[in-house]
């Protein structure tokens, strides 16, 4: 009797599951969203801000889970191993685009479909207030005068400060000592305390400290002035050669596996497009010093490829990679 009952229940469950798969329209149930960085980080904040807005367009909940570790490699592996039904979203930053050349993982955004690249950040070069420099030129001159003595706050290989430092080194001799911290927040903390001398950082992490005059900003890593920081020169003012890499910055996006059915992809793209144009979200992102992108599909793929090609090759030339980008078919910029 008991087994019969169980069998009936199982059959019923299977039936309803099958019905879900065929007849009901996507999304028939709640989705899961995997955030590749920990709670409280920039990626986490962006994910938690955009999701409630997309939920109203989707008509279902997206249950958010942080799966940090391996600079995002844990999350990309997890989502890639899930069924391609469009019920698992990946909320990520730029990191996976370097996982191949850093030999962290064989999975990058080529395996995912960009539902939306929401925005990209802008880097600034900030220095401790006690330092004598007034521009990046002063900083570079000082670094050349006392090679290795100036300490640069960093966040480890592939992180924003590291990449900006490597970009600088391809343009000019720039002998500084990087001291890696656990993230931009801890790096800026060390900068405030004078334990490092300068740091290339995302504007979103540095903006409030610049405004309060607790650190001084030497340049914006961009080819023109930006409205959030009037009067601060772009890095190309001192080093015109830098221009070929720009615009460059960290970015935030929402992804699903590439082989998810088109109907689900379309639904998600529409939902997140609407969410990313919501004034509340735009205010939040722009207020944090980001530049809105709100692109999807082929346009976003184009952006992802260009970002990967620029960054991977520069890091490779700076001898900061473990494997050549050539090995993975990443074209030279």
């Amino acid at each position, binding site marked *: 009797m008991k087994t019969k009952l169980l069998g009936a229940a199982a059959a019923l469950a299977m039936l309803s599951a099958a019905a879900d798969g065929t007849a009901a329209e996507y999304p028939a149930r709640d989705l899961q969203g995997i955030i590749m960085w*920990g*709670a*409280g*980080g920039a990626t*986490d*904040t962006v994910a*938690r*801000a955009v*999701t*409630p807005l997309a939920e109203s367009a989707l008509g279902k909940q997206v249950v*958010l*889970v*942080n*799966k*940090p*570790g*391996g*600079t995002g*490699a*844990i999350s990309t*592996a997890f989502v890639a191993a899930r069924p391609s039904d469009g019920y698992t979203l990946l909320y990520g930053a730029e990191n996976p685009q370097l996982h191949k050349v*850093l030999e*962290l*993982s064989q999975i990058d955004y080529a395996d995912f479909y960009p539902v939306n690249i929401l925005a990209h950040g802008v880097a600034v070069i900030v220095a401790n207030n006690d330092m004598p420099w007034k521009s990046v030129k002063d900083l570079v001159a000082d670094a050349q005068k006392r090679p*290795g*003595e100036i*300490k640069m706050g960093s966040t*480890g*290989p*592939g992180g924003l400060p590291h990449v900006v430092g490597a970009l600088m080194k391809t343009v000019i001799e720039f002998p500084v*000592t*990087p*001291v*890696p*911290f*656990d993230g931009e*927040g*801890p790096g*800026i*903390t*060390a900068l*405030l*305390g004078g*334990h*490092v001398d300068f740091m290339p950082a995302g504007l979103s992490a540095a*903006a*409030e*400290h610049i*405004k*309060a005059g*607790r650190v001084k900003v030497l340049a914006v890593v961009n080819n023109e002035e930006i409205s959030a920081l009037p009067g601060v020169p772009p890095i190309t003012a001192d080093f015109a050669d830098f221009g070929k890499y720009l615009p460059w910055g960290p970015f935030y996006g929402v992804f699903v596996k590439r082989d998810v059915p088109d109907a689900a992809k379309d639904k998600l793209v529409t939902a997140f497009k609407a969410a990313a144009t919501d004034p*509340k979200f735009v*205010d*939040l992102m722009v*207020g*944090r010093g980001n530049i809105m992108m709100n692109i999807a599909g082929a346009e976003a793929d184009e952006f992802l490829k260009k970002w990967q090609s620029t960054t991977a090759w520069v890091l490779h030339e700076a001898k900061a990679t473990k494997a050549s980008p050539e090995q993975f078919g990443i074209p030279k910029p």
Partner: protein
Amino acid sequence: MDGSALSYFLMAWFDPWLLGLTALGTFAGVYIGAIPGLSVTMAVSILISFTFSWDVNEALALMAGVFCGGVYGGSRTAILLNIPGAPSAIATALDGFPLAQRGEAGRAIGVSTVVSVIGGMLGVLALAIAAPAISDFALMFAPRDYLLLAIIGILLVGSLSGESLAKGVFAGALGVLIGMVGLDPLTAEQRFTFGQISLLGGIPYVAAMIGFFGVAEALVQLHHLKATPIRQQVDRILPSWNVVKRYIPLSIRSSIIGVVIGALPGTGGDIASLMAYDHAKRSVKKPSRPFGQGAYEGLVAPESANNAAIGGAYIPMLTLGLPGDAVTAVIIGALFIHGLRPGPMMMIETPHLFWFTVGNLTLANLFTLVFGLTGIRIFAKMVECPRTVLVPLIVVLSVVGTYAIQNSVVDIYWMLAFGVLGYFMKMYGYQVGPVILGVILGPLMDVSYRRAMLSVRDEPSAFALELVSHPLTLVLTLSVVLLLARQTPAWTTMQARIGRWRNDGRTGGA
């Protein structure tokens, strides 16, 4: 505090809705904190999406409640079941669980509630009167100072190793090894991952904590399945004023440790409570019982410190927009989402926020007292369950809690493996406390030492000079030297000589 500050302070006190949210948050926090694996960090980050469309004050009131209640709640399961509900309750288990085994669980919870609230209030007081000064002080800590702090902390192995120091050191080293697994935090090089993607993120130390404390303890209990459960005395739960008075000096000293460690951006309540426990062990000459066997002092110190660390963690957050620990990092994210700009300008741009938070935390502490002191009897009776019920319950709780950390089944395997390992370690006289100490402090020592060396371009002489050339660093260096020197035979002989000389002096004068 001028008029407007007072009105901000009282905002949540007289608004029934905000008052209710703070109470609700505290109540939920106590139970979230009590369940191992369900962390305050997780609860607060879920609240971000949940409170997205709310007013920022409402969201903050709820979060402050969950934070205070959650840190306190961790002590519940630590005392009753020897499973710390949260990492900041690890030190609480060391003397709390022996107390429960003596049938004093009710009193232990009562005392821990009262000192938690004392610590919490002192933390809020420090936040209210000295926030700018403390945050500037916290910024002074360089990588080398974090290294010295971690060394002071790791010396606690000596206090936690039980009968054999060698076994304690072995256990501590095992913990350091567990903490090393994953990506090197400085170079992203893989360490002990054997090419496995699932090991890239390291082994979550909460999984190790639940395994070594919870499951290992459950396995040990299997030896005593037939034993009758200890009867819990639940008649005197509220500690009398005389009892509380005795612990106040220790509670205040521990709270100071808690505030400072909490305010440091690289350390939180877990390290604060371990250091406070160590401090108690060194400074209390005549504990109510030997430490590790149910000394109330061993309960008072960590519970005061971890709750004081809450106020401490809010200090850099409110004054500089920098997180003091993992929970405040999440709250900063929440502030961003609500359109605020956490940073040094926040106190100028949104002046109400500071005193509103201070008022809220005060309120949350009061609610902790209320919710903490109610329901103790039922909780204490839980331990009176027959072991055949209790042991499976502990295992289920451990598995659920571990899965909840990051929804990973692999973590459960780790946790169970650590549980079995912990069981054999206990059987052969190895304490599990040092393992967790190693897991927490090993990585901190690792990165701090290497950052400090990188800062002086890998020159040992320059590093040695830095240890004595900065006032703060010098104080910490001297503390380490003193702590080590006190354990040497030379120190003991000198002490004895000084003692004799004093006695001679006295007798000579008479």
